[in-house]
Each structure stands twice: as structure tokens, then as C-alpha cells.
């Protein structure tokens, strides 16, 4: 019954659809197309696919060249190298110019798994959201990933879309309404609110269901768009539930938690807890083992909820 697909897989699939619909779409990669799934687009539309080799700064510089020539560009590599290695190129050549380049970065977070610490980025959301005008999106499942990618490609300007390696269960069905910039309340509740992004959206639902067995009625919000963040839904949750736990496959420094706290502090201060990487590097292991070890789980969310409710 439960469909499991990685958001990077959804990315590969929606690129094929978009490629047919939009002849101005150019897809670029840095020797990781079999992992980022841009290879499928490359096979279908070889004349519009460009591999720049293992050179991430040049990938994003060249992407700007295509964008200022009238193309809409999806340029992919692993999140560590997109947001990390190419940060300044993205900031100065894409952000400052408002270039129509979508940085579609895969393999974010600890679920990269066996490749280990050098490849597991916990900083990319923090980095990208500090760039003025950058849209930052972290879809929670493959259904929303496709819908959000379509909207991102429609908008003219820079965007960072964070995609995962690991297959995750569907949260949504095809008919569900997913709007860029608007958080989705996927479970109503009044005891407190979990605001989650990416793979933690599933974990949040599991946590909420567990706690409902104890009679604790928790609201769950999928904050797929971290920038621009949906301030209204955050303030509503603060007012109506009195406590917020944020959950992300990212450092608790500078990511979703910080973005939500920035709203809560200013507009409606209430108790908050952050679930995520606790300012550590990662390591090699199976994704599920790593999630367990580093607290990227529904159990960690439950513990955080109980801390607020205590």
C-alpha cells in the first residue's frame, strides 16, 4: 500500500515531463548524473544536457551563462558540493544577478549513508537561506517533490531544491494541493505542533500517531518551503497549540529550526525544541542505523515533544 520513492527519483522523472513541455529547459550535472537522476533527461534530450565534469564551481558559472541566454537551468550535484563548494559562485553569480538557475541538489543529510562525513551535508539549508532572493525547498515525499519542482521551474529566478538519496514513503496523493511558500497542515491538533521538512515529515507523522495513542493530539506541518517561510501558519500554530518542535535532516544550527524560531521569537514567543543533527559531523553506516545513532527519528521527535509538555 505504501509507495516508497526517493525525492531524487521524483526529480529525475519530473525532468522528463518538463523537458517535453519546455524546450528552453537545460539540465546540467557534474559527473553525478546517475546518482542525481539527471541522466534520464540526458538520455531523452541529449542536446539539452550538459555534463561539466567534477567541477562544481564551473557547473554553476556555466549554468548562469545558459540562464542569461534565455534558458531555464536545473543544475545538479550532491548538496555538499552545490551549497558548499560552489557557495560563492551561487551567491555572486546566481543570487546577486537573480539568474534563472535551479540548484537541484541531491544526497542531502545523513541518509547519504556509507559515503560518510565528507559527503553528508548538514549545513546546506543554513547556507542557501542566507542568500537574498533564494527560494529554498526541501520536499518531504516524491509527490510533493514533483509538484514543487514544477512550481520552482515556473518562477523566474534562483532556487535551491534539496533532494534525498533514500526512498521515503508517500505523504501525499496526486490530488493534494501543494503550494510553494505555503506550509501544509497534514494533521490537525492542539497539544503542540511539529513543524518538519524533508524526510522528517514522515517521521513527524509517525511521532504524532504514537502520541495520539497516549491521547496527546499533535498538529503536524510540512514546511517544505523554508524560504520564503510561511509565517502565518507558524504564528497560527504558536497561538493555537502553545509549543513547537522543529524536525529536519540538517544541523539544528541555521536550518528550519532557526528559521521557525526567527518567526516565533518576533511574533509569538512560545516554547520550542529542535530535532536535527546536534552540531556534529556524520559517519559511514546504513542510513537507518545513522538516523538512529544521530537522532533523526520519530523517537527523537517524541522525546522533544515530551520535553515541552512536561
Amino acid at each position, binding site marked *: 500500500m505504501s509507495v516508497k520513492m526517493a525525492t531524487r527519483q521524483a526529480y529525475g522523472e519530473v525532468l522528463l515531463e518538463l523537458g517535453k513541455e519546455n524546450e528552453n529547459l*537545460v539540465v546540467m550535472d557534474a559527473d553525478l548524473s546517475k546518482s542525481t537522476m539527471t541522466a534520464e533527461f540526458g538520455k531523452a534530450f541529449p*542536446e*539539452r544536457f*550538459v555534463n*561539466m*565534469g567534477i*567541477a562544481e*564551481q*564551473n557547473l554553476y*558559472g*556555466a*549554468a*548562469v*551563462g*545558459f*540562464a*542569461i*541566454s*534565455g*534558458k531555464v537551468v536545473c543544475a545538479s550535484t550532491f548538496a555538499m558540493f552545490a551549497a558548499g563548494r560552489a557557495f*560563492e*559562485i551561487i551567491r*555572486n*553569480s546566481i543570487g*546577486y*544577478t*537573480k539568474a534563472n538557475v535551479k540548484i537541484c541538489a541531491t544526497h542531502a543529510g545523513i541518509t547519504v549513508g556509507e559515503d560518510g562525513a565528507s559527503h553528508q551535508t548538514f549545513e546546506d539549508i543554513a547556507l542557501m537561506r542566507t542568500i537574498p532572493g533564494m527560494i529554498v525547498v526541501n520536499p518531504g515525499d516524491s509527490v510533493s517533490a514533483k509538484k514543487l519542482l514544477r512550481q520552482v521551474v515556473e518562477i523566474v529566478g534562483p532556487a535551491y531544491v534539496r533532494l534525498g538519496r533514500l526512498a521515503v514513503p508517500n505523504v501525499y496523493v496526486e490530488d493534494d494541493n501543494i503550494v510553494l511558500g505555503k506550509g501544509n497542515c497534514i494533521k490537525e491538533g492542539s497539544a503542540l505542533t511539529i513543524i518538519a521538512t524533508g524526510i522528517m515529515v514522515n517521521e513527524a507523522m509517525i511521532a504524532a500517531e504514537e502520541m495520539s495513542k497516549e491521547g496527546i493530539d499533535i498538529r503536524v506541518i510540512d514546511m517544505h518551503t523554508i524560504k520564503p517561510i510561511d509565517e502565518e501558519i507558524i504564528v497560527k500554530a504558536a497561538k493555537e497549540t502553545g509549543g513547537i518542535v522543529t524536525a529536519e535532516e540538517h544541523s539544528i544550527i541555521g536550518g528550519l529550526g532557526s528559521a521557525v524560531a526567527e518567526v516565533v521569537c518576533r511574533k509569538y514567543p512560545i516554547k520550542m525544541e529542535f530535532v536535527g543533527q546536534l552540531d556534529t559531523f556524520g559517519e559511514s553506516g546504513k542510513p537507518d542505523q545513522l538516523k538512529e545513532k544521530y537522532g533523526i527519528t520519530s523517537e527523537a521527535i517524541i522525546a522533544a515533544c515530551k520535553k515541552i509538555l512536561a
Partner: protein
Amino acid sequence: MEFKELEKISRNIRISIIKAVHSAGSGHPGGSLSAADILTTLFFQEMNVDASNPKMEDRDKFILSKGHAAPVLYSTLAEKGFFPKEELLTLRKINSKMQGHPDMNKVPGVEMSTGSLGQGFSVAGGVAMANKMDKKNGRVYVLLGDGELQEGLVWESAMSSAHYKLDNLVAFVDWNGLQIDGNNDDVMTVKPIDKKFESFGWNVISIDGHDFNQITEALDAARKFKGKPTMIIAKTVKGKGVSFMEGNAGWHGKAPNEEEAKKAIEELGGVM
């Protein structure tokens, strides 16, 4: 165009550079003056551009990868008629379109915002690729500094431009031998520049960057050369045209004062 004409235009551009940087009280005169003859040839003889239609379809495009030489780009565009010359005096002032490093969203004729070295060159490669993808005739010209060659991104882009056989791309190195902390050779040697680009798969031409005949011949050769991008290594003098600035690293990023500006402009045959 007659070389005498080009010489007259480059003189005007040099005068504008001095006036603009003096008015700003800061900026980069040395590396702007050294590039003036190259930009004069490009905008007044070589390139298919229209000052009254800066976004003309399938135009030639110039990217100033050594973005700190903004004064020479702005002065050349103004001389060509992209905007009124008076605007040059607003260089680096708050709320001005004439930002310290070129902003494509503010100044007509500026194809790409640059300033952080290496990035303009990378973007130029992308533009050339896009032109080939769309089978356009427009050619892409890009100017680098010699110190800029110390940036790793330059070599990523050199590699990909050769790999993709971008013979619609022509790059220049403004080889004046000086950077901020002194000679290239003292700071971080970039020589041999020609052998480096040749080994990266480029067609390389070495010229005197102040000789209009050589600049013209190199551009003609580049246009005819198929299968490789062309790198024109232009030996230049930093501060060219102003006696007390020539060959002096100190004039990389310093504005002339009132007296110095007056002297410079007089030497260039103009009035303050």
C-alpha cells in the same frame, strides 16, 4: 575602422577612466588603463552590438571577468553611446548605477555582473555553449586579468571550453605583470601563460596589447580558427597612457587626487 580613429577613441576612454575614478575617490585605474585598447577594438571594430538596442537578438557579448576594471567597461560603453557620459561621474557613489564592480541589472551593455575573479570567465563559457546549442552566430568575448589566472575556477572553465570546442569564444589576458601585492612573479607566478592554455586545448595568440594592428589580426585569426576557443595573451602596461601610473602596482586600486587627475588628463590630451 582606421587605427587612427581607434587611437582617438581609446584616448577618450582613458580620459573618462581618470575622471570617473577621480570623481569616485576610489577604484582601479591601473588595470582599467591597461585594457583600454583591447576594449576599444572590441566595441568599435570587432563586435556586433547596438548601443540603441542593448538586448539585440544574437548580438556579440563581452564579459569583463576582471570586474574591478569596471571604469574601462563603463567608459567604453558610454563612448559607444549606451548611456550618457555624465553618468560616469557617479561611479561608486551610493544609489548609482555605476557600481564599483559591474552590475548587469543596472547598466545597459553590461552582459554579466562580475567582481569575484574567475566567475565571468566561467559564465562566458556557458554563454558560448548556449549559442552553440541554439546555433547562434553571436560570438563571446571575455577579458581576464593576469592575477586572476591564480583562481582555480579559471582552469575549470579553460578545461570545459576546450572540451566543448567553443570556437565562438575569444578570451584575452590583460598581461600587465602586476597585481595588488606586487609582480605576478613575486606573488604567485602564472607563467608560462601561453603553454598553460595550449596544454588545456586552446588556440593561443600572443600580442602587444597596445598595438591595434596586432589586436585586429589576432581577432581575425580567432574568427577563422575552428574547433578550439582562442586565448589572446596581450602584453600590456598597467596604467598605460599616464606616465606616473605606468608599470606601478600602487596604481592598481588607488584614485588620483585633483592634481594627479589634472596631470593625467593633460598627458592624455584632454581637459579636466
